[in-house]
Each structure stands twice: as C-alpha cells, then as structure tokens.
C-alpha cells in the first residue's frame, strides 16, 4: 500500500504568540516548532496501515522553507520511508495555492491513500487536505476519528454536532485525521538515527497567486479584569447574584 501524508511545521500549541515588530507576522524567536499534532495522527495511521498490510511505502510531503526539513525528519523518525519538501520562500495566507502545490506533487504518484491532519493548529483553515482531494477528484472524508481499510474500501467515522457520521468510500481516497484516530508513537533513538539516512527530496516550487492578502494582525481584545467573589461554598450565593444581576446570564 502506497500512502502519502501531507504535513506542516507549526508553532507548539503551548507557545505564547507575539506579533513581530513589522506587525504582519508572529515573532518566531524563541518559539518551539513541532510537527502539526493532527498531522502526527495522520503519520501514525499511515504507519499502522503499512504495518498491517505487511508492506508498502509511506511518503511525507510538505510545503515550507528549509526549516521544514526538520519536520520531515520527525515523520521519518516515526517510521515514514521518505520525504519531499516543496520549498517556498513564504507561506501564503490563502490555503488554495498550498493545496494546488501538494496536488500537483501527488498527482500520478500512484498513492492508494493520502492522509492529512484535519487542520494545522496555526492558521486552522481546516482546508488543505479536502482541497487536495477535490483537485485530484478523489473521494474524501474529513476529521476522521476512526478508520478501517480493507480490500480497496474504507469506512470512516467522523464526529459531528451531537453524533458520529459513518462514511464509506473506495480507494484511492483522501482522509484527514482528527484527534482520537490513534495514539502517535514517539520516535525511538533508532528511528531518529535511521531518519538521517532516509531520502529527503527538496524541490523548489513557485506557488500560484493567492486570492487573499494581508490586511491586519492584532491581539484579540483583552477581557476586562474579573474578580474573585469569595472563597469556598459560601461564595456561591454571591456568584449566583452576580451572574443574575450583573452578567445577566442566568
């Protein structure tokens, strides 16, 4: 089984976001970057499928700068076979050019399955994976928390408001991973050493023109300072009173 996984380098979710001096981007100094957590589920699922099928290849693909090589190495250390970096100078604010670049790379690659994280935790567009599917005219299921693949077919479960959708599809297909799909492995030392020798192909590309341009970046409005209404259970009536008369939410 030949599986492609689209991944992205993102700031750690615990990182404090600071707007850079130019006001148009975040200040990356001192920020730890990680493999997007949802992409980690996608990589893990690909590895499990390969292991279950008893063979195949897992290829990780990303769009980014040279620094994204490190992110690819993380996926290789988990067990992916090779990586492709579609090298760009800057990431666009519109997900469409990224999806087009990935689709162009994956088209004709003979992949049975393309896995992606459901969204990147930085810009959270929840878009690229499903766009790649549309561009390649493949069936796709988004935000999947349970996946079964057998005999060229798949059954996926995705959470919706107040329920779980059960979706069937045929391969080749695109599936985007939600939390809950699996428990990603930590790269072992052996895997980290092996990753250094695995093929990583860097291809400089030019992205299509985006349809969105930067207008402004700002911190959300500060919440007004609140107050401690009291200590222990005795403070409950004062809280109820505040919620009823001041906040008017009860």
């Amino acid at each position: 089984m030949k599986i492609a996984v689209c991944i992205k380098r993102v700031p750690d979710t615990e990182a404090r976001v600071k707007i850079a001096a130019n006001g148009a981007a975040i200040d990356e100094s001192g920020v730890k970057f990680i493999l997007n957590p949802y992409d980690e589920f996608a990589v893990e699922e690909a590895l499990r499928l390969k292991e279950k099928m008893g063979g195949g290849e897992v290829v990780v693909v990303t769009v980014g700068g040279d620094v994204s090589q490190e992110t690819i190495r993380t996926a290789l250390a988990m067990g992916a076979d090779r990586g492709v970096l579609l090298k760009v100078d800057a990431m666009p604010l519109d997900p469409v050019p990224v999806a087009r670049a990935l689709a162009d790379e994956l088209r004709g690659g003979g992949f049975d399955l393309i896995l992606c994280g459901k969204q990147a935790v930085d810009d959270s567009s929840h878009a690229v994976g499903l766009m790649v599917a549309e561009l390649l005219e493949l069936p796709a299921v988004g935000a999947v928390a349970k996946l079964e693949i057998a005999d060229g077919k798949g059954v996926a479960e995705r959470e919706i408001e107040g329920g779980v959708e059960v979706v069937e599809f045929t391969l080749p297909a695109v599936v985007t991973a939600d939390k809950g799909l699996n428990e990603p492995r930590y790269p072992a030392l052996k895997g980290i050493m092996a990753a250094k020798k695995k093929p990583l192909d860097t291809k400089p590309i030019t992205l299509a023109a985006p349809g969105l341009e930067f207008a402004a970046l700002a911190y959300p409005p500060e919440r007004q300072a609140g107050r401690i209404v009291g200590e222990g259970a005795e403070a409950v009536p004062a809280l109820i009173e505040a919620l009823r008369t001041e906040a008017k939410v009860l």
Partner: protein
Amino acid sequence: MANVLVVLEQRDGTLKRVALEALAAGRALADHLGGEVHAIALGPPGLSVEAAGAHGADKVFVATDEAVRLYQSGPYAATIAAKAKEAYTAVLLGATALGKDLAPRLAARLVCPLASDATEVAVEGGALVVQRPIFAGKANLRLRVTAAQVVVSLRPNNFRPVEAARAGAVESIAVVDAGGARTTSVKAPEHATVDVAEAAIVVAGGRGLKDAEHFAILDDLAAAFGGQAAVGASRAVVDAGWRAHAEQVGQTGKTVSPNLYIAVGISGAIQHLAGMRTAKVIVAINKDKDAPIFKAADYGIVGDLFEVVPRLTEEVRRIRSA
C-alpha cells in the same frame, strides 16, 4: 452583480440556527454591496426553508432528495458549486462540522480563496475584508480578498440572526449526483446531550476533578441548567482518557463561545484559554488562587470544587424551579 450566496444547513429537515446566522452576515454584506442574498439548501423531501425569507433571503434554491437526507460531501459540493459559479461575490456558510468539510471543497471547485471560521466580514474601501482568529484565537488576522469570489465559513454563535423579511422566493433545483464518499448513517452519541460547541452554557472540568468518576458532579451541574448546558473537558483529562475528545475545549479541541463558561479545576493553560476566551461570561472555580484561569475569568471562587460545585448545582436548581 454583487450577490451573496448563503448555504443553509439543515438537520432532519429543519434549518439550523447557524443557517440564520449566515443569512444575517450575508444580508449585511449584500446591503453593503447593493446586491441580493440568495440561499441554497439540500435536504430530504419536505425540507422547510420558510425561515430563510424571514431572515433576509431574497431567493432560496432548494434541492431535496432522500439521497441527501444526511450530509453527502459529493452531491453537496457539486450542487452548490454549480449554483455558486453564477457570479456570486461571496459564498457564506457556518463553520460547523458540515461547513468545515464543505467549504474547502467548494473553494477548490470554484478555484477561489477560502477564509475559514471568520468572526467578521466587512467591506473596506470597496474590498471584502474577513477577520479570522489564528493560533486558536491567540491573534486575529484580517484578510483582504483580491479574487472575484471567495468562500467564507463563519464561526457559529458569533453572528446574530436578524429579522429581515424578504421575498424568500423558493426555486427547486436538482441535486447533482457527484459520487464520492457516502455517509451511510449517523450514530447517536453515547450520552445524548447538547454538543459542547453549540451549548449556551458549558461546564468544563480539568485535572482538579482528580478522577473520571468525579465528572458526575459536573454532569449534575449541567443537568441543573435544564438541557442547555454541555460538559466540556481540558486537554489533560481527555489525554488521560477520562472524557471523550468530542468534549475537549482548546487549541486541539473545540473553540466555544457560550453565554456562560464555568471552568472547574482547570488551571488555564494557554491552549485551553484559546478555546474559550470568546465566551460571554467566564466563571472559574479553583483551589489555587494563583491559577491563570482567574485572569481570564469574570468571576472566580477560590475553593474546593467538591464543595463549591454541589452547592452551585443546588442553587441553580433552586432558582430555575422558582
């Protein structure tokens, strides 16, 4: 022509509130642009779209078929994209599970940009400008649309439905059968409660609960609010397996904007605050007076949650029965 197309989400043949929210955003935008609001809905035979006209739709395209009783990504994307190709400046829809799935498919088919989970849509200097939170709400990004068309998904509970009576003339159209993946069923959740992302009140628990079983006191508090409240959870307790991921609030969970958010035994990690900072009112109950959650909260009680929460439940029951 500066018309706006609004995708109406339905469940069981009835329009969802998020459809009316999208209509409100569409109406404001169309009024600004001097255009009309057209709406489109797919659903089972008998689908009722009367509310669309009352909430600002000039025209409503309805595609009903038993085959699209449930959300089917292929027919939805194909049917709506075919209609949207008829020169609409913007295509708006709610950023729900359905909307988040459909929006990128539409943008890819229309070869136009996508702005997801927008909290504001405006016209500035003749250009469409969309505001969307990034880094799970740690910053707000404003984007100017330079393309002739854009798909915008709108954060639920953020735009207020408006009474704006328009013709709402209904026109039936055919469902375009496009194949693709097929939804075969929707399984009900194990605990039939309101979804944490849609609830007016969220009672969320963290590590301070100490054990999965202790969440019973939060279930009781949520129940005391009478069906409008949901239980939420911090990442720590979901990772520990105490609660389902469906309940997780934060950067790798859901972003919620309820009227009231009660954080119980939650310290207030950055990634959690990112998911609930847009709540109208935040209450924190924590034994550590220095917990960061108190900085985000409107009202706080410092104390043992195992004493405070049952008392709160009792008081809520009392005022609701009064």
